[in-house]
């Protein structure tokens, strides 16, 4: 392989690359970030990982390496109960009916999509018998008078939270502007380069 990057020239020669078997991929995990103490956690995206702990590890850098935040947690996508999505004046809660009551008690985290195209935001925690039961109970607790377009429920025990002692993960050296694209002032450099090369800047290059 020809490249100006010396690292590419150093890559070991690999033989024929065979495609992986279909579905031979890591599963996904949902990542939630808390921007500030007291603010609700917000869904930021998904991560591929072999298990919950690895997902936490990789989520931390993928989603919080540049921006200030105070906490992160992750949950296996398969443990997220998702409601139907609604539009207009219809709330997703209107489509949920009461579940049969069971014996298993637990805490469940509830997330709301308050606006189409936005991210899910943590609405609160309910004690319930199941994720479905939690979704039913959440309506009166968190959604009175509001239109919610989609609801997620995750059992608290299935979440990998940031522990109190791990909170200093985000206590880092501040002098790392080089991580931000804005620090490279690409536009300024391009202008300077164009003026130095004395090419007329026609604006439609």
């Amino acid at each position, binding site marked *: 392989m020809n490249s100006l990057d010396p690292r590419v020239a150093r890559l070991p020669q690999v033989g024929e690359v065979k495609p992986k078997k279909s579905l031979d991929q890591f599963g996904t995990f949902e990542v939630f970030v808390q921007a500030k103490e007291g603010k609700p956690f917000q869904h930021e995206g998904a991560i*591929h990982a072999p298990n919950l702990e690895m997902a936490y590890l990789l989520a931390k850098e993928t989603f919080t390496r540049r921006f200030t935040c105070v906490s992160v947690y992750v949950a296996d996508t398969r443990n997220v109960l998702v409601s139907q999505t609604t539009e207009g004046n219809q709330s997703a809660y209107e489509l949920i009916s009461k579940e049969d009551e069971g014996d298993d008690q637990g805490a469940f985290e509830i997330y709301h999509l308050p606006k189409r195209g936005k991210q899910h935001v943590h609405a609160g925690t309910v004690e319930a018998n199941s994720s479905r039961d939690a979704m039913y109970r959440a309506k009166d607790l968190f959604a009175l008078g509001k239109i919610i377009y989609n609801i997620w429920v995750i059992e608290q025990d299935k979440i990998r939270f940031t522990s109190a002692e791990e909170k200093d993960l985000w206590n880092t*050296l501040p002098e790392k502007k080089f991580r931000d694209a804005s620090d490279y002032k690409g536009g300024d450099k391009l202008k300077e380069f164009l003026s130095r090369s004395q090419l007329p800047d026609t604006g439609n290059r």
Partner: protein
Amino acid sequence: MNQDALKELLYKIADDLLILGHRNSEWTGFGPLLEEDIAFSSMAQDKIGQSYAVYQMLTELGEQSPDTVAFTRNANQFHNCQLVELPNGEYDFSLIRHFLFDTADALRWEMLAQSSYEPLSLLAKKIKGELRYHTMHANTWIKQLGSATEESISRLQNSLTAAMPYALGIFEESHFEKGIITEGVFAGEQELKKRWVSKIENIITQTQLLLPDLKIVAPVFGGRIGKHSEHLQPLLDEMSEVFKIDPTAEW
């Protein structure tokens, strides 16, 4: 406080971080998973940021600017241990080196948090969060792959065995060792090594890997006094290529 002793300590800390930061940055774009590529690159940046902070202390003590020190010295003027300059090899070796070095590095800074030299103890507190992530990252991967498949276990085992003589080279003592300890600047390489062995053992015993018998592994020393493998100079040439063409270049 003995200035030469202090400078030697700072140089070896900063050089380890700069060289390993550069090595690890060579994985950027080639990591085994997108998420891991980002994490490993971030940690490489952390290391370079930390080395910069220590080079700034050296500037305060009368040494040349961080860029000059980083980009204009030859291999025999660097004080890093040889472990950090070895080529990346495959990912198993890079992970094992990351585990062995970063465990020692985090413990070193934990000890430096008590340093009588205030700039060091202050910096130790500032970077505690970064170091927590680095060791969490290393431990999680080693526990994951150290108990996963036959291939992952044997790859890590081979790399662990190959890296161990170099890892012991981290703890090469300086001839200022006694002074550094009695003045309370740093509790010393022997103390660091003792803590390191116990941490390493703790993680390795949670996997199917075997720790080599450290009593019969001969450490590779020399890095701290400027004796390096043939791999360091090419790394320095590549790292300083732009600086040598134009020292005022910004990029």
